[in-house]
């Protein structure tokens, strides 16, 4: 450890010299510290260390077409909502890249996505504790005008080590108009990708493929306000290393996603459909967990920013789901009756996700099953219909209003026994009002309410109704202060009708931000893009510092 700090000091001295010669060094820093106190009422466990912290420091050097960088991460110990395996300190991310005449070479760690990510996405999502950066070599090459190729070979990161599987991938994209120099108003973009994962296998009973291949093809057509995107992906047999007949599944996987968008001034509409069947790609076939997922099938539901709208979030079922989503954006004109002086913005969103008929594809000596392609009457996993209204009333007042109705199949999405909680139907209303007191001083208030209905026959009672209120006072450009309370007034169990109060105070200046907060957090599920983590309930102090230079 001493060597590391000495190394850092030398490192920074050399940076300074480097910096004088037309090179640049930049970075950003993030520290997130939380204290955990025991609180039996909300089932919050105290942490032995009392304080836990996640922090990282990114540094990038660039000089002309060369850039290199690293990230130092420290988990001493990681916050309770992160996987236990994030332990200790290290430099899990370092890279060097240069580009010359259309060829870009990266050695070390990199992130990559092919198409929409159906067969491969290496990315980071700090909020979830996901970081499956690749470590290896990547080449990007602009073959001709409009044709670009990328290939890579590497292993994927899990915590402070690398997963077993070796990935090789190639992706090509061609923009027809550019390449063929068409003068058409319609733009056509085609793309194709291939991924292969090698993992050594030595199963005494089943012949397991050591190389698992995945293909995908995509098409994007754009014409003025119209935009169509479609992608189809296919995975060749990827069974798990088991010796039980019923556990090995040689079925191939497939997925498709299709979206059509139209937009013009004041109006926009998007329709999307996606389906996934046996399409989970893991960096190590034998392991379980979100740290090993290598592809990205985002959930087809609206990412909600308001707490009660996101109380029951949907997790993607890569093994089998069919989803549809529709969004309509409309701005009621200024000066009209409904529009008011400044116009009113509306966003109507509808999404519905159900399972596949009969479940996921299975192929082994006993079963050979492929579910129907389009069947919308199957088990409902999640549905959401909501309307958001955004309006500026006058120079001082503006508001956001959302009304939603969500259906959440808690038994299925959270892996409970059928009949335990059943399906929860909630009606949610949110009013978010800002009032400008004077120049630079704004008071924002939010009131949210959730009314939940659960099937009578469910054996366990869900939490019931909630109400939430929040007040935020901000002084531009530096200060903010927030106080909020989430109250579970509708819980059948009177002892569980708890208030989750939180206060937060912060200071921002330029690229630095400090915030300190204190309060209770409810146990819940936090999802980003359909990948979820369990957040344990907690009671304590939270400190967050971020900075960029």
């Amino acid at each position, binding site marked *: 450890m001493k060597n590391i700090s000495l190394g850092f000091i030398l490192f920074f001295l050399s940076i300074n010299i480097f910096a004088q010669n037309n090179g640049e060094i930049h970075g950003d820093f993030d520290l997130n510290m939380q204290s955990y106190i025991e609180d039996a009422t909300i089932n919050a466990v105290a942490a032995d260390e009392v304080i836990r912290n996640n922090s990282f420091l990114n540094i990038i050097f660039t000089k002309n077409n060369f850039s290199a960088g690293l990230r130092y991460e420290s988990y001493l110990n990681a916050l309770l909502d992160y*996987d*236990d395996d994030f332990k200790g300190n290290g430099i899990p991310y370092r890279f060097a890249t240069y580009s010359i005449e259309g*060829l870009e070479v990266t050695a070390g760690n990199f992130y990559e996505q092919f198409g929409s990510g159906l067969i491969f996405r290496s990315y980071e999502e700090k909020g979830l504790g996901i970081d499956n950066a690749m470590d290896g070599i990547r*080449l990007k*090459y602009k073959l001709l005008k409009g044709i670009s*190729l990328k*290939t890579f*070979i590497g292993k994927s990161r899990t915590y402070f080590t690398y997963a077993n599987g070796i990935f*090789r*991938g*190639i992706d090509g994209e061609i923009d027809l108009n550019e390449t063929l120099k068409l003068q058409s108003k319609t733009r056509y973009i085609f793309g194709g990708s*291939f991924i*292969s994962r*090698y993992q050594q296998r*030595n*199963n*005494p*009973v*089943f*012949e*397991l*493929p*050591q*190389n*698992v*291949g995945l293909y995908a093809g995509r098409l994007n057509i754009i014409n003025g306000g119209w935009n169509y995107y479609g992608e189809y992906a296919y995975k*060749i*047999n990827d069974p*798990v*290393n*088991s*010796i*039980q*007949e019923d*556990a*090995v599944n*040689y079925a191939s996987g497939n997925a498709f996603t299709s979206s059509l968008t139209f937009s013009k001034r004041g109006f926009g509409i998007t329709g999307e459909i996606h389906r996934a069947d046996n399409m989970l790609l893991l960096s190590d*076939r*034998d*392991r*379980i967990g979100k740290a090993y997922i290598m592809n990205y099938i985002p959930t087809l539901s609206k990412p909600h920013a308001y707490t009660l709208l996101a109380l029951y979030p949907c997790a993607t079922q890569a093994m089998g789901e069919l989803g549809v989503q529709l969004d309509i954006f409309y701005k009621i004109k200024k000066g009209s009756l409904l529009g008011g002086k400044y116009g009113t913005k509306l966003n109507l969103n509808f999404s519905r996700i159900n399972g596949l008929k009969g479940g996921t594809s299975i*192929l*082994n*000596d006993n079963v050979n099953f492929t579910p129907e392609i389009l069947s919308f009457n199957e088990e409902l996993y999640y549905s959401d219909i909501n309307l958001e209204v955004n309006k500026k009333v006058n120079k001082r007042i503006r508001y956001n209003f959302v009304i939603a109705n969500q259906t959440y199949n808690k038994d299925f999405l959270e*892996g409970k*026994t*059928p009949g335990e909680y059943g399906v929860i139907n909630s009606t949610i209303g949110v009013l978010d009002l800002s009032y400008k007191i004077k120049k630079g001083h704004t008071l924002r208030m939010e009131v949210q309410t959730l009314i939940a209905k659960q099937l009578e026959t469910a054996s366990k009672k869900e939490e019931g109704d909630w109400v939430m209120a929040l007040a935020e006072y901000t002084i531009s450009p530096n200060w903010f202060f927030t106080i909020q309370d989430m109250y579970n007034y509708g819980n059948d169990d009177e002892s569980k009708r708890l208030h989750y109060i939180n206060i937060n105070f912060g200071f921002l200046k330029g690229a630095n931000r400090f915030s300190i907060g204190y309060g209770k957090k409810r146990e819940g599920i936090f999802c980003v893009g359909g990948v979820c983590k369990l957040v344990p309930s907690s009671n304590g102090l939270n400190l967050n510092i971020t900075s960029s230079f």
Partner: protein
Amino acid sequence: MKKIIYSLFLLSIISSCEVIEGPYMTGNGGGVDTNSNQYVKNILIEDFTGHLCQNCPDAARELEAIHDLYGSQIIGLALHVGSTFARPYPLSQPKFTYDFRTKWGEELDGFFNISDAGLPKGMINRIDYPGDHRKNKGQWLASVQQELDKEVVFGLNINSSFDGNNSIIDISTDALKDISGDYKLVVCLTENEITNWQKDGVIEDENYIHNHVLRSLITSAWGDDVSLSTNISNGENYTHNYSVNLADLENFNIDYSNNTLFQGNGESGGWNQNNISILAYIYDNSNYEILQVEYASLATN
């Protein structure tokens, strides 16, 4: 030049996918040498489980399948741990009221940090500690294969008799090579064929048969020294003797459940003496790796 790089990449990538056709079960492989004079290396699969854990029976079945494949070299131990998956329901409920947890199971779970990360999880001879000792059932086969290749260091023999009141356990350990280090012997009692509730996938099975369930440890969780000296020579033999009274052990568990365990209700009794077995293992105290394990029936009359 760039074209060559690309062609090379393309070739290596495109040739790398395998399509396997059925029938899939080849049925060969498995089974190891059965030379009855020599000691073989036995492997302990510690299956951390709970009756509320619906994915756990799959792991128990994987353990059974591995046992069927490799025979008596595979010894299983089911530890019901944790308040999330193994806590019993209150006695007023019709199901899941049994408390399978034990003092030693909780202690081992706490030390090796198993159930915190979700169940089912297991340890295969406690290899790869720390850092990678918690294994998903998908990793068990490969870990077992890796362990089977290792050489045998100790040989264990278990004998049991009954003196009218108590069961007597005699454990004889033979060192099979010269080694030095700190080795500990742990002796457990397990029970087979306990029929009780278990969540299994989407159903709740009233008649699930629980096997090799940990009932009690005769030694402490960390065991007794195998040898008093750190240098052990090939051919040396050590004996350990224990006297156990099943009724006392059963009462201990009942009291422990009532007084100490989270939401414990004392429903830890009803042991069937005829189904109780002895499971003994030797581990290396420097890295907790289990070097030998043996299993035998307990004499109760």
